[in-house]
């Protein structure tokens, strides 16, 4: 016998309708929530990009402290901006936030080359000519002394290169080299007196650029870094010699020490600054953007010669420079060995010594050249060396520390983002 039970049927139907309605409400809620999330993300992305562009167009001194601003004077358009001086480059940190949502980007900032002033060679005018011999090749514009450039017969070998001697414009150099940026040098010099934490035993350390710089201070104790990986916002400081073994992996960190020794076979990306010397072993590879620099603001009465020496078949992509505020009797020098390659810029406040097969793809500023064979020391001779500015990547960017760099800022490398 069938039962009528109309109330029972109605409850079942009501339940079904209730479930459908609930589903509808839930679907609408989540759709709306996700859409609002996407809208917020899009808006934050546009604000973040605006913040990045704002950092790239402001003067160097702005935003050294984290500053929060409202971009357009409207709601939900706040960004926090900060520029951190990071060796010869700058680091930009931009955060865009609204309510609980924050997106950020950290990036390094560099300057493109000034094509009007860019040259393969700038040798200060010391009232004597530059002599070339062997398989020397100079490609790109060259600023030469008034006495000019000439071929020479060295080690029983004549000049074997292009008859034009310089494959580019020959321009006249000044008595003095264009100076380095004083503000940047002051900032670098300041790092030699920082104090930080005593390094603990560790095998790897990564520090975000959104956090304060992690300073590891080795003080007066010579130390060797080995089997260690360091990345990001880390500064190593030593008042004496710091040795970097080939088992050490360095990524974007800064090193400030009295003397730095880099062991044979090292491969990494870092900026090394010493007040006395940097000695790089054979077959080392410094990836772009790296830097080797001598910064000496105080010269003692019996100071050793400030120098950068690079072992054979090493490659440096970035910048190599020497600077001494008041050079003593013995001037700072850069010594490259056989088959070394530098992709970027070399600025030697005084001299630079080459060996056979050295290649500089980029730009070289110096006062004089040195070449020494078994018996003789030649001054202002370029022998079996290639200086080629046209082989440098068109995307290369340098630091405003050096001359021939435009004031325009660009993003060198994205470091962190979420």
């Amino acid at each position, binding site marked *: *016998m*069938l*039962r*009528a*039970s*109309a*109330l029972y*049927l*109605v*409850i079942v*139907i*009501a339940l079904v*309708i*209730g479930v*459908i*309605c609930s589903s*509808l*409400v839930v679907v*609408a809620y989540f*759709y*709306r929530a996700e*859409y609002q999330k996407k*809208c917020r993300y*899009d808006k934050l992305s*546009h604000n973040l*990009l*605006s*913040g990045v*562009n*704002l950092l*790239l*167009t*402001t003067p160097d001194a702005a935003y050294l402290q984290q500053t929060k601003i409202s*971009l*357009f004077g*409207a709601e939900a*358009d706040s960004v926090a901006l900060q520029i951190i001086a990071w060796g010869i480059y700058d680091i930009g940190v931009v955060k865009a936030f609204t309510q609980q949502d924050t997106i950020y980007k950290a990036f390094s900032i560099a300057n493109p080359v000034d094509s009007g002033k860019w040259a393969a060679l700038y040798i200060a005018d010391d009232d004597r000519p530059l002599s070339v011999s062997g398989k020397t090749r100079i490609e790109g514009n060259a600023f030469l002394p008034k006495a000019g450039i000439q071929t020479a017969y060295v080690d029983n070998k004549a000049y074997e290169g292009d008859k034009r001697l310089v494959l580019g414009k020959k321009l006249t150099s000044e008595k003095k080299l264009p100076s380095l940026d004083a503000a940047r040098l002051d900032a670098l010099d300041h790092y030699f007196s920082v104090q930080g934490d005593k390094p603990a035993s560790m095998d790897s350390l990564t520090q975000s650029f959104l956090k304060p710089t992690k300073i590891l201070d080795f003080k007066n104790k010579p130390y060797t870094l080995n089997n260690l990986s360091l990345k990001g916002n880390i500064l190593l400081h030593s008042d004496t010699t710091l040795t970097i073994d080939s088992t050490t992996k360095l990524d974007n960190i800064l090193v400030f020490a009295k003397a730095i020794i880099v062991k044979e076979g090292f491969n990494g990306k870092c900026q090394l600054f010493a007040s006395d010397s940097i000695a790089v072993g054979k077959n080392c590879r410094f990836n772009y953007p790296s830097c080797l620099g001598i910064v000496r603001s105080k010269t003692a009465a019996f100071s050793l010669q400030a120098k950068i020496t690079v072992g054979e078949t090493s490659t440096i992509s970035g910048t190599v420079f020497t600077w001494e505020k008041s050079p003593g009797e013995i001037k700072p020098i850069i010594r490259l060995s056989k088959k070394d390659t530098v992709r970027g810029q070399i600025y030697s406040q005084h001299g630079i010594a080459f060996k056979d097969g050295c290649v500089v793809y980029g730009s070289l500023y110096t006062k004089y050249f040195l070449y020494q064979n078994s018996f003789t020391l030649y001054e202002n001779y370029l022998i079996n060396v290639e200086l080629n500015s046209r082989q440098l990547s068109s995307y290369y960017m340098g630091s405003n520390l050096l001359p021939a760099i435009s004031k325009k800022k*660009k*993003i060198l490398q994205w470091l962190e983002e979420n």
Partner: protein
Amino acid sequence: MAGRKLRIATRVKASTILEVVVSMVIIIAVFGVAMMIYANVTRMSLSGQKIKAQAVLSQVMKNMGSAELSSNQESVIGDFTVERSVKPYDGNNNLIEVDLKAYDKNHIPLAELHQLIIPNNDQ
């Protein structure tokens, strides 16, 4: 054949009139509430037109070239009228503030987008 009595083999138990009335009231109430919920969800849901307008503005901003940063302009893209205004940001001529607004056919604002752009920046 005619006049023959219909014989029903099973007996069906009928609902009372009170049961039917209560059922009807409940079902009407449930349907009423369901309709209200549906209407609310439909009313509160996002306008497809606004979403589309926002996407159009993002695309316009992304494709904006240096030549377009020199003057204000109004253009029609699909169903929308896009109004673009450009001005130096905070007195800085190296940085341009671009404001985009999208309107529908009745000139009702649907979406807007603001961004700072460096002119002649190829990165």
